[in-house]
């Protein structure tokens, strides 16, 4: 390799390394990120002004962060959300992995649904769990439907994955070879 190529590739590697950034884990909620939203529009039919800046801030902090999402996933099972919502597919409660939201699908709307509870069975968690945990849960609920960066989203639970021997999908369907006589 010529010396110029060497220098060039070293520079590229260094530049690529400079792009690496380790995700921050916020064990304590950063200031200004662990209180409930004030104004939320749940559906376009309801008038109201949503605090867009706060929503965007919360979406960025909780939804783009693998640690918060995995904490949300853990809490989803700890607080038995799966008991009604299944693992996102819905059962007694509505499905969470589609884009149909009765009470709004933005992170702050989901926060309020968890905090205030909703008719027909959704219990209110405000005062029972800290605000940071509700934000983590809301972010995880949104990630079930594919929101947020793919690299940050937790994968499916081991126990809802199809075991390899039952549903082998690694063999592609091979089309029958064309008959040479035709």
């Amino acid at each position, binding site marked *: 390799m010529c010396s110029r190529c060497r220098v060039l590739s070293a520079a590229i590697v260094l530049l690529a390394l400079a792009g690496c950034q380790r995700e921050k*884990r916020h*064990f*304590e909620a950063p200031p200004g990120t662990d209180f409930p939203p004030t104004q939320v529009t749940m559906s376009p039919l309801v008038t109201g002004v949503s605090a867009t800046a706060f929503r965007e801030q919360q979406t960025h902090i909780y939804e783009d962060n693998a640690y918060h999402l995995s904490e949300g996933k853990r809490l989803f099972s*700890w607080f038995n959300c799966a008991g009604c919502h299944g693992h996102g597919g819905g059962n007694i409660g509505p499905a969470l992995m589609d884009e149909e939201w009765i009470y709004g699908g933005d992170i702050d709307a989901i926060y309020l649904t968890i905090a205030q509870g909703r008719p027909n069975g959704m219990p209110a968690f405000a*005062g*029972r*769990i*800290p605000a*940071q945990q509700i934000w983590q849960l809301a972010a995880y609920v949104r990630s079930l439907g594919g929101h947020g960066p793919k690299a940050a989203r937790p994968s499916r639970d*081991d126990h809802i994955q199809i075991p390899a021997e039952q549903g082998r999908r690694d063999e592609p369907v091979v089309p029958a070879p064309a008959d040479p006589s035709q």
Partner: protein
Amino acid sequence: MSLSAHSVSQPLGVHAEHIAFIWHAMLGACGLMYALLLGFLVMTLLRQHRSAPAGVELEKRIERTLILWVGLIVVGLCGLTLASFLTDRALVRAASEPQIALRVIGHQWWWQVEYVDADNSQNVRTANEIHLPVGAQVHIALSSDDVIHSFWVPNLNGKRDLIPGRSTEIRLQPLTTGRFRGFCAEFCGVQHAYMQFEVIVESAQEFAAWKARQLAGAVTPTDPLRQAGRDVFERAACPLCHAIAGTNAAASTGPDLSHFASRRLLAAGALTNTRDHLRAWLQNPQRVKPGNHMPVVDLPGRDMTALVAYLGSLQ
């Protein structure tokens, strides 16, 4: 009761004694061979100036020495293999008729301990503490709730992994009374270092008294401050993860707190269980043990004082 030095070379249980024996046997045999080797090396260095025999005489001497050396190695290795085999058999046989059955579940980052009895009403649930009567044969079923952990009480037995989705087991038979430290011996996340527990080996009477106290249910507060503390506990976020027998808190994702104040350690060994430490822990668990699963719960100072007084009374 003082805390014993946690050391594999201070065996205080049947299993640990067997393990210490094989360890010392291996150390002795290997040490002897090493000393011999070095001895011969020094000898050759010193002998180089003396006139050495040559030819057939030399060949014969080398052959004799080599046969001796190989023979020594064969005998040594056979001895060690035999000792290892016998130790293995002894370990399997030891505590094969358990008198006490336990279930230990590893969590990030604490140990859930359950005494399992044929009679369900005799089951005891606690955390980060294992009480055992001296001399008893103990069987512990191990499982993990999240990631791989490893159960290790150096004075009593070797390590055994706790693997999610699988159950493993370990047997103990402590020979002396005392407090023995236990650890998680498999890196399991940010607070792996504070995933400790204690094994408290006591006389049969003391153990029976401890178990009776654990079975008796939580202390009901009588003074206003502690009653207020119980109300705070039931009203705040606590019952979503913790349980206290006799209250409406019955969750099992966090440690059972029915007899919280009877335990010496707090937060799986991060702190000793004193009022001041408890207050610091409740005010901000993330500052004491960053990353652990106990959230910061904002409570007014008055409520916190009542809560600390209540939890501190749960003997």
